[in-house]
């Protein structure tokens, strides 16, 4: 029973981190319908930038976080205006290719600059273990779970309560109607991608203070994020949380009780199984139109 509680706690913590790392993709893939294979690379760029600023330059953690969010937002906006905008409305294939090209470019350029060594963001939170009954959690993880919850909440409020969020939802439901009612849709696309990139970068920086930032982990992050978004259903933050937690807990329990070799396959198996039963996600809504 103690083992079960510990595994459950680990699963919850990791699940929250999965949800955090998939937030950006929830926006870009879930809402905007851009299959963004460069998501993991944006996460890596955030992590490496965070490492460079905290470790090499010696900047304060929260100041670095602000810098990372700002620079990735600018980068994301430029990516959308310079690349994605040119293939908008041509189906998903060109965007998939563009983002794959972008991810190859980012990964290998990062490899050229920082090499293959794993790097760590300097964290201000103590790595002390906390004992909650039979469960042990380190302090830094607990703090990060709290930060993740705040970030998710802020993103949710931004989409649901602000004018920008409302125009985003309008644009992705029917861009023509949105344009007719005076929304500058090209800006909305740009801002959404910028927000997605900023969230990916922030997640990369935050999680690299516990795990590591490494130029080559982008693929894995992208894949897990896709799994989380699809499990939760497209474009809903509540869904992303559920998807992340489902993935985290299943992986933790499987790794604890069964074999650890196939842990990474679980997410894919879950996605395959779920798309067979509910093709558009646990909370997804989808209607086919001619």
């Amino acid at each position, binding site marked *: 029973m103690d083992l079960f509680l510990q595994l459950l706690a680990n699963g919850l913590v990791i699940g929250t981190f999965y949800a955090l790392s998939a937030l950006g993709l929830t926006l870009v893939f879930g809402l905007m319908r851009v*299959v963004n294979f460069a998501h993991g690379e944006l996460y890596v760029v955030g992590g490496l930038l965070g490492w460079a600023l905290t470790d090499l330059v010696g900047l304060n953690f929260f100041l670095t976080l602000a810098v990372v969010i700002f620079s990735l937002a600018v980068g994301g906006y430029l990516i959308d205006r310079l*690349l994605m905008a040119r293939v908008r409305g*041509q189906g998903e294939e060109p965007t998939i290719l563009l983002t794959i090209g972008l991810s190859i470019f980012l990964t290998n350029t990062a490899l050229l600059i920082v090499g293959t060594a794993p790097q760590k963001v300097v964290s201000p939170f103590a790595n002390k273990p906390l004992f909650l009954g039979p469960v042990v959690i380190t302090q830094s993880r607990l703090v990060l779970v709290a930060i993740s919850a705040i970030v998710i909440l802020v993103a949710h409020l931004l989409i649901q309560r602000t004018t920008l969020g409302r125009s985003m939802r309008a644009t992705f439901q029917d861009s023509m109607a949105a344009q007719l009612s005076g929304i500058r849709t090209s800006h909305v696309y740009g801002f959404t991608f910028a927000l997605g990139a900023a969230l990916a970068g922030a997640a990369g920086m935050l999680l690299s203070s516990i795990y590591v930032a490494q130029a080559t982990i982008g693929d894995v992050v992208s*894949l897990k994020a896709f799994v989380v978004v*699809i499990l939760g259903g497209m474009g809903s933050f509540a869904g992303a949380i559920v998807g992340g937690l489902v993935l985290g807990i299943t992986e933790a329990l499987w790794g604890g009780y069964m074999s650890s*070799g196939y842990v990474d396959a679980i997410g*894919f198996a879950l996605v395959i199984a779920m*798309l*067979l039963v509910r093709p558009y996600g646990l909370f997804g809504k989808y209607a086919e139109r001619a």
Partner: protein
Amino acid sequence: MIFERNCLLIALVFALLAPLLLQNQYAMHIGVLIMFSVMLATSFNLIVGYVGEFPLGHTAFLGVGAYTAALFSTRLAMPYHVAELAAPLAAALFGLVIGAITLRLRGPFFVIVTLCFAEVLRLIANNWIGLTNGPMGISGIEKPSWAIAGDAFQQKVSYYYVGLLLAAVSLFVSYRFVYSNIGRAAIAVRENRFVAQSIGISPFYLGLLTFVLAAAIAGLAGGFYANYVSFVGPEVFGFSFMISMIIMVLAGGKGTLVGPVIGAILVVLLEEYLRDFKELRFSIFGLIVMAVVLFLPRGIMGFITRRHETYVRRATRDA
């Protein structure tokens, strides 16, 4: 149709003569790689160009073919031609199962789920050590007698001609498939799914048929690769083969049979040429992918056919 057939026949004649002109072992190695890539690109193109979906996990079938051929020759001590026949059959079987599941989905969901299947297979190849020898891979795949006869140059030439035969068979089957009623129906589905459905075409079965054929060709390529390299590891399921396939088909021109062939030749030569740039070459590759999508959206063949069509139109008008 005739234009495409003539292009392919001319390419075949050139390919047959190439070893006589290029008395060079390295050039023959490149030739073998080109034949392998032509098979892969043709297979990937059948789905991208004629079903209109984007199977990002197409390496699954390459890997299944390669592992089947490797296991047949190492575990069962089968000769090469049996292993090479078993590879496409096994891949087609996997194609049937995976296609039956994934073709219910469309768009981004299809993309991700096919990728999931390839990843699951990669993880199995990595972890089922009893069967696949895990990350160490299967090495020492026995070569047939024609492949060890003569000096190094002649061995390469033998492989080149076998590769050419397999690639020609793949292209011939694809040609007959694409220009049959089934192929035309597939194009109807690709162009407008709902119109096609309304005249009694079932998109699912057409898609599945194409999917199985494409899987078999990828498996054929995998079997050839396994024997040529004489080693198979889990990286055959990996993303790097996928990326080359995508670039070949898209740069060459999807939805044509000649396009992927041109793309395959270009990509193999480009990869060899960029070797001088060492690590920088992958970054350059990424930039090339983006440039192709932005500036050559229909690939080189799209560009050529448009020129050809205007030429024909002008000729008929003047006549």
